[in-house]
């Protein structure tokens, strides 16, 4: 598919089967080399971004105004007062504040690599322990929300895209409105209608399956609207493609064409948004967990922001960034493997 030099094209075309096999082998090998090279480059760039994120996280912790040991001690006791050197000494030793900043930075990076996010100012415990016991609930919520969003988006776009002007504009309008709905308001409306009004779900979301549905929907509806906007454009473009015409000529039903041919192409941009979607649902959990009184890292984060417990705040923020970068990297690698256009010329 890529443009090759004319001499190359001429030489490969009329060759007999044997040499063409050799050429194929050669091309396959060079494609493999190119794929590995591309993946390697993406990997390095992802690591650079993660290193940058860790650096931002480290310096954010230094940004608290005032002497750090005093601040930590005051946050721990919930007071604001001057401290004596004797009180500060153990804190300085515990957090390594006696070392120069660069040494602290190095120690911080080394800790991150082995999964040590530092010690909470408030709870005397490692940040990984504080986050670890709440992470499961939030990841479950986040993944359920993404699943719901996909189902909602596919059903809505397949039903409304390319169906005549009225249905189309209604479809697009719903996309825009859904994407713009603030999570706090949507959550409260769902809570009022389905938990307080119809009593289908518990008001205070437990950790059970029943308590998961409303919070997940709260995150899923705006996400579905957002993904539907890009999917709809691709979907309507796809409906005019030659392969769709040929499928119709073979006598395929409209629903069959939409589901088996058009949808596949149309969902590609939404797949690309996966990393972003994970980040959006994990951070949206902050609001949703607060509305439905669910446990999770969102609630931990709000409490930590209130208490200025920076290691916990920074730990959660960094963790979400790691998720985002990792998923993006995986999506990128998957594309590199699938895309036939990536060819050695």
């Amino acid at each position, binding site marked *: 598919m890529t443009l090759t030099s004319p001499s190359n094209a001429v030489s490969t075309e009329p060759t007999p089967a044997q040499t063409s096999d050799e050429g194929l082998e050669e091309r396959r090998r060079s494609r493999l080399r190119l794929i590995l090279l591309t993946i390697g480059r993406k990997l390095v760039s992802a690591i650079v971004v993660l290193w940058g994120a860790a650096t931002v996280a480290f310096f954010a912790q230094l940004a608290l105004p005032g002497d750090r040991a005093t601040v930590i001690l005051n946050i721990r006791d919930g007071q604001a007062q001057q401290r004596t050197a004797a009180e500060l000494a153990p804190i300085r030793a515990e957090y390594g504040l006696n070392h120069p900043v660069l040494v602290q930075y190095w120690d911080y990076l080394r800790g991150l690599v082995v999964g040590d996010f530092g010690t909470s100012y408030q709870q005397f415990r490692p940040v990984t322990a504080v986050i670890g016991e709440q992470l499961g609930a939030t990841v479950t919520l986040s993944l359920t929300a993404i699943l719901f969003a996909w189902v909602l988006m596919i059903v809505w776009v397949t039903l409304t895209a390319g169906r005549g002007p009225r249905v189309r504009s209604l479809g697009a309008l719903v996309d825009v409105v859904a994407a*713009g709905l*603030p999570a706090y308001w949507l959550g*409260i409306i769902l809570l009022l209608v389905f938990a*307080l009004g119809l009593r289908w779900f518990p008001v205070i979301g437990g950790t059970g399956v029943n308590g998961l549905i409303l919070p997940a929907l709260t995150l899923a509806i705006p996400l579905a609207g957002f993904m539907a906007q890009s999917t709809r454009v691709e979907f309507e473009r796809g409906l005019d493609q030659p392969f769709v015409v040929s499928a119709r000529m073979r006598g395929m039903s409209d629903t069959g064409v939409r589901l088996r041919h058009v949808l596949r192409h149309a969902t590609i941009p939404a797949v690309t948004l996966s990393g972003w979607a994970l980040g959006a649902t994990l*951070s949206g959990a*902050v609001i949703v967990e607060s509305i439905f009184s669910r446990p999770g890292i969102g609630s931990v984060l709000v409490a930590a*922001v209130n208490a200025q417990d920076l290691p916990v705040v920074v730990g959660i*923020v960094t963790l979400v*960034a790691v998720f*985002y970068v990792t998923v993006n990297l995986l999506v990128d690698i998957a594309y590199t493997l699938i895309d036939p256009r990536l060819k050695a010329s």
Partner: protein
Amino acid sequence: MTAIRSATVPTRPIQLRRLPWGLFVAVLLVLLLAVAAIAPQLLATHDPYALDYPAALQGPSWAHWFGTDESGRDLYSRLVFGAGQSLLIGLGAAGVGIVLALILGSLAALAVKPAAVVVDRFVEVMFAFPALLLALLLIAIAGPSAVTEIFAVGLGTAPGYARMIRGQILAAKNSGYVEAATALGHSRARIVSAHILPNALRPLVAVFALSVGQSIVWSSSLSFLGLGVAPPAPEWGALLDAGRGYIIQANWLEVIPGLVIVAVALAATTIGRHLQAHLEKGEK
């Protein structure tokens, strides 16, 4: 240009009739909001701070259009008086976000190679943090207040806009007219100021309108979490935060302010989209 304009004159009345009602409603809402922000006493029916305990937690009625809160204060008047602060925070945050994005985006696209690469990576790093989390990080450091809220939301939204601006500038930089200007021997500074920036930044007007709507939603989210403007103030997010405790007895305290925020955000989005479409059409 004049030929095009005269050609469109006969079709004017039709275009007027076709004026999308959505845009009309959006503009009307924004005008109303502007009046509420500048002279709230014109629109309010009650004193937004007047306590009236016998009338506490009443539903919407003729006396209290949007009902009353736990201290008998009129919700409609509080929303009107809160408009100014909410709008100011939204405008401020959008301004901070766009200015920050402008600096980062143009540096990433126009600075000399090593600096541009570093800025570009930095934007990439910031983009890895979701907007809300970046905002929360700043609030954790600076402590919650209206000013922090403005900068937090601005900082949170900036990386996305910075990427967009960088893309716009790069597109302009690789265009035919810049190539022509380079061939004519214009200086780099002149090409940047006369060709690249005006063309790349034209869409920013629309982006700013979109961003104001987004910023109002983000900042009210922060207030809702109790990390922005504190409740006695009638700022919209703070109203939501204050109403949370009464969701069972008085759901209008949550539903109505939320509806107002959604309506304003949608209005800003609608206007922004129309501006965007208009600017793109004008360019071609």
